Each structure stands twice: as structure tokens, then as C-alpha cells.
């Protein structure tokens, strides 16, 4: 596998370049709108990819992912309302700096750090993916079963404040994933006589329903909200000297983000907080944080863009998504008839290398487009929610229909949206449910194959080197989660006693 052996002309086609450009523009817009993050953005544009070539389809989505993470900082800085959950840390220093009359400077720190984060994320993606894929080629069904289960344990443990409800979400997702024709026997499972369910519940319907339609229902709570934006000094530019002053936290943040992004269940949100905390800890003037400190903007912004590259590592090497956004990207791969994983590195190396280089290019495109269009997005933030919500709902419905041209899927999406609205209100974990729904078939298939081949002998998981390593990691993580949960409980009890 040699990146220099790739046919670069594959990347420099009009379709690929247009995909990166469109994805970046759309990602900046959707990221800037408060409440709509990268996942909703990717889910909404998914139908556009159905007729595209695989490389340009994936590049469109990763460009949206990359640009939406930066876009989230625009409303954080200009409005004081985070565009994405990952941009919350940016608000702490972005808003005070903007209120000092220099929102353009704050945005300048943000776009520069985001671009550096994007580039480092892409480099980490390239560096980690190839060696990991060559190890993953040696994995068999027992390892894939354990890895997918490990991913679910991580997501369940980290994505909700209520652990039992998180586990329930995982189990519910796994159960929904069993609907449809059984791959081993051809028997219809839990279809209740419906022909539309023979192929299982549509992944696109569940994704768009749970993320986009439920988000629309949430937005109805703030229907009359009108944002007032600062229109002066929005020109995003910082001097070389100013960039040098945040260089260290930018680089550190980019690496923190990239590595945190690799872990399922974490992603851009926690990455930006880790990076912000580290920048404050390492600063000579920690008292300036929260008052418009440029390092407090650069560090989280570099991290949330670095996390995008990291999040693509498990998806490309193992075919296992670690976050809802990468789950939607996995959906795009599957729609294109490609099951991502180590085998794609051998069967279609141009696609993988095209994604690497296209993703790297997207970081540069994001920098230049972001630099010159940020003031436009900042002005568009005044678009009222009552206009936005019906349009998003309508696009979501069209997207679901366009995936299979089946109205049954639209019903599924509407029901999923309503159910997700209540589940979210009651602290169930939607990311856990979605990832379990997607990973469920992988888990079941690999478990059944393993047990069938071993003749029902479960010790097969203990006799293979890689299985043992994954089992050990799993055990350590469960112990760490239980101990963290106990510590938190004790701390809360102590606080109550005081």
C-alpha cells in the first residue's frame, strides 16, 4: 500500500473538487446555525450523494463534517450560542473577545486553529490508518465481534449521564437491527408480514428521523427566537505574530483532538474541552482564560477539527463508526455498495488514498472559504427559526424518500423522530442507539460465525492473540468506568453531606 502510487487524477476531477467545495460551503452554513451540528448536516445532504461516484460522495460528507466543526464557532463567537456542542468551549473566550469589539480577530483565531487541526487530523488519519489496517487484515470474526462490542461499551459508558438508560439504548438499537431477513437462513425475522421490512429498517430513515426530525421538534421549543448579530469588524484576519502566540496550543489541541477522536463515544465535544483545559493549565496567565484569551479559542477549535480526522480512523480501518457523524458516513459507504474495513485498502486503494488527500485538501479549502465567507454566515444567523424548521423537516423527508423511493421509510423516519424526541428528553442515549443499530448486524453475524465454526466452543475468544488483547482492553475499560462512576457518586454524596 503506497500513497505515492495512487492515481492523483482521481482526486482532481470536477466532481471531486465540486464535492469538496459544496461540502465546505454547506458545512459552514449548517455548522453556524445554532443547534444543527455536523451529524444533522451530513444526514440532510446524504441524498445528494446517491447518484455520485463513491470518492466524491465521501469527500462531500467529510468536507461537511470538517467545515461544520469550524462553522459551530461562528455562532459561539458572534452570538454567544454554540453552533455545535463541540463549540461550547470556544464560547468561553470567543464571546468576550468579540464583545471587546473584535469579533473578526476571534474568528481569525478560530479559522486558523481549525485549519491546522484539520491538517493534523488528516495527517494522523494517514499515519494511523495504514498500519492499523494491516493489523486488522489479520482479524477474524471473533475479533470483529469483540471490537464492535468494545465500541458499544465505550459509547454506552460515555454518552449519557444515566448508565442503565445508555445500556437500554444500546440494547434497543441491537434489537431493531435484527429486523429483516436473516442472512444465514433467509428467514424473515420480526417483519410482522410487512414486505417493506424484509430488508430491515432503513438506516437512512432511522438516522434522519433520530437526528434531523427530532432536532426539528426540539427547535419548535425556540420557534420565536431571533438572534441579533454583530455586523461590524467581522473580517476574519490575524497577524503572523498573533498566530504565533497561539501556535503551541493550536498544535497541542490538534493532537489531543485527533487522538481523542479515534476513541468511540468521545469525539469533538470532549476533545475541545480536554484541549481547553490543557491550554489553561499550561498557560502562564491562566487568569486570562474566560476573558477573551486567544489560546482559549485556538485550543478547542484545533481539537474539534483534529477530532474529525481521528474519528475516521476506526471507520476506515475496521468499518466501525465511533460517532453518529461517522455512522452517517458509513451509511453513505453502504449505499455506494462498499463495506469499509481493511479489505477496501486492498480492493480499492485509490478510494482510500483519495479520501486521505481529499480530506487534507478540504482543510485548506475550509480555511480559504471560511476566511472570506464567515461574515456572510454570521449575517445569515438572523434567519428566524420559524422559517428554518419547516424547511429542514421537508428536506429531511425528501432525503429519506430519495434513499429507496419508498414512502414506508418516510413513516419510519417520522416515528423515529418522535420517539427520539422523547428518548432525548428522558436522558436515553441516541448515539448509543444508532451505533448499536448499525453495529448490531456486524456483532450478530460475527458471533454466529464464530460459534458455528468453533462448534459452540466459547473458549475460542481466549485462544486467539488479538482476541485476548481486545478482551483485556475491554476489561480494563469496564473497571475504569465502574471506578469513575463510583468516584462521581461518592463526590456527589460528599457534596450533599456538606
Amino acid at each position: 500500500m503506497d500513497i505515492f502510487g495512487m492515481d492523483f487524477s482521481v482526486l482532481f476531477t470536477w466532481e471531486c473538487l465540486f464535492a469538496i467545495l459544496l461540502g465546505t460551503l454547506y458545512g459552514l452554513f449548517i455548522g453556524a446555525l445554532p443547534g444543527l451540528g455536523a451529524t444533522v448536516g451530513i444526514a440532510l445532504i446524504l441524498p445528494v450523494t446517491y447518484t455520485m461516484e463513491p470518492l466524491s460522495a465521501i469527500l462531500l460528507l467529510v468536507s461537511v463534517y470538517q467545515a461544520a466543526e469550524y462553522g459551530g464557532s461562528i455562532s459561539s463567537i458572534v452570538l454567544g450560542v454554540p453552533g455545535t456542542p463541540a463549540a461550547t468551549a470556544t464560547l468561553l473566550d470567543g464571546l468576550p473577545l468579540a464583545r471587546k469589539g473584535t469579533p473578526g480577530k476571534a474568528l481569525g483565531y478560530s479559522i486558523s486553529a481549525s485549519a491546522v487541526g484539520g491538517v493534523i487530523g488528516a495527517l494522523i488519519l494517514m499515519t494511523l490508518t495504514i498500519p492499523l489496517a494491516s493489523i486488522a487484515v489479520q482479524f477474524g470474526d471473533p475479533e470483529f465481534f469483540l471490537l464492535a462490542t468494545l465500541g458499544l461499551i465505550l459509547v454506552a459508558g460515555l454518552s449519557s449521564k444515566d448508565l442503565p438508560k445508555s445500556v437500554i439504548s444500546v440494547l434497543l438499537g441491537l434489537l431493531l437491527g435484527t429486523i429483516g431477513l436473516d442472512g444465514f437462513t433467509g428467514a424473515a425475522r420480526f417483519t410482522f408480514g410487512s414486505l417493506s421490512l424484509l430488508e430491515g429498517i432503513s438506516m437512512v430513515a432511522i438516522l434522519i428521523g433520530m437526528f434531523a426530525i427530532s432536532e426539528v421538534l426540539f427547535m419548535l421549543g425556540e420557534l420565536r427566537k431571533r438572534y441579533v448579530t454583530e455586523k461590524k469588524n467581522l473580517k476574519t484576519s490575524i497577524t503572523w505574530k498573533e498566530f504565533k502566540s497561539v501556535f503551541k496550543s493550536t498544535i497541542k489541541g490538534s493532537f489531543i483532538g485527533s487522538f481523542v477522536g479515534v476513541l468511540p463515544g468521545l469525539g469533538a465535544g470532549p476533545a475541545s474541552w480536554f484541549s481547553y483545559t490543557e491550554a489553561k493549565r499550561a498557560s502562564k496567565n491562566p487568569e486570562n482564560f474566560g476573558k477573551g484569551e486567544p489560546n482559549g479559542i485556538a485550543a478547542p477549535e484545533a481539537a474539534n477539527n483534529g477530532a474529525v480526522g481521528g474519528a475516521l480512523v476506526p471507520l476506515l480501518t475496521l468499518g466501525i463508526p465511533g460517532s453518529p457523524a461517522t455512522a452517517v458516513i458509513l451509511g453513505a459507504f453502504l449505499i455506494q455498495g462498499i463495506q469499509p474495513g481493511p479489505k477496501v485498502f486492498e480492493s480499492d486503494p485509490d478510494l482510500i488514498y483519495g479520501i486521505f488527500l481529499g480530506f487534507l485538501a478540504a482543510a485548506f479549502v475550509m480555511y480559504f472559504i471560511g476566511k472570506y465567507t464567515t461574515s456572510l454566515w454570521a449575517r445569515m444567523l438572523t434567519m428566524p427559526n420559524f422559517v428554518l424548521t419547516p424547511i429542514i423537516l421537508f428536506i429531511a423527508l425528501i432525503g429519506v424518500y430519495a434513499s429507496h423511493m419508498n414512502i414506508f421509510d418516510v413513516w419510519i423516519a417520522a416515528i423515529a423522530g418522535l420517539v427520539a424526541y422523547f428518548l432525548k428528553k428522558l436522558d436515553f442515549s441516541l448515539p448509543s442507539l444508532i451505533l448499536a443499530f448499525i453495529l448490531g448486524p456486524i456483532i450478530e453475524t460475527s458471533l454466529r460465525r464464530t460459534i458455528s465454526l468453533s462448534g459452540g466452543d466459547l473458549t475460542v475468544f481466549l485462544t486467539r492473540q488479538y482476541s485476548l488483547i481486545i478482551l483485556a482492553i475491554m476489561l480494563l475499560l469496564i473497571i475504569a468506568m465502574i471506578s469513575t462512576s463510583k468516584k462521581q457518586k461518592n463526590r456527589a454524596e460528599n457534596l450533599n453531606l456538606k
Partner: protein
Amino acid sequence: MNLSYKIATYVSLVLMSGLALVFYFTSSELATLQPNQPISPATFPRLVSILLVITCIISFFTTMKKENEEVDLVNFHFVIYTLLALILFIMVWQLAGYFYPLSFVFLTVLLYIYSDQENNVKKLLKSMLISLIVVLLTYLVFGMLLGVIF
């Protein structure tokens, strides 16, 4: 509108346990397939169903220990209007077709209901204009460019 967190959780747990039991019992026919294999098509869903019921019971007790709070369903009447409009939209689309005119009506109704403008005529005209633009764009992008037949 407010909702009791505890009661809503209990209801959701009962519903999920019910769903798990439906999956468990309907998988009995599947258990007889592939009798020579150590694992049947029913094994995995049954295992997940049992675990789901057990976790629901655990969650029931952990919720009992928590202090009750109110879940704020802000502007819930808008959620109900939207769902009603959505159900009608999908039903008419499925039964009668006419996707584009129907979409125009659907969008106009939602924009009109959501708008905070006081002048009803202006509100209607504005809603119709926005709907027309969105439907035209949908026709151009999805109908013409992507070849989606609605």
C-alpha cells in the same frame, strides 16, 4: 406543558420491556430453524430481549432513587400541530400522490402556523412565497438533477 420525569421514564421502560417480550416470543418459530447449529436465528434477539428486560428493571429502581423533576415540553402544541400536519402530508402523498402541490400546501401551512407576524394576509403571502421557492428548488435539485420520482 410539563411531564413528570419519573412517570415518563416508567412508562417508557414498560413500553420497552413490552417490545422486548414481543421480540422474545415471536422468535420462538425461528428457534427451530437450523437445529444442527449451536446458534439459531433466534438466539441473538432472545439474548438481547432478556438483557433489555433486566436493564429496564434495573433502570426502574435507579429512577426510583432519583428525585423527581419536571420535563419541560416547551411549545408542545407546535409539536402536536407539526405531527398532525406530517401524518396528513405522508398519508395524502401515499394515497393520492401530487407530491409537489402537496408539498407546497404542507410548507405553507407550517410556515403560517409558526410565523409570529400579526398581519394574516402578509403572513400567508410570505409563507406561500417561501414554500414556492423551496418546492421549486426541490424540483430542480431532486426532480431534475438527481432524477428522483416522487
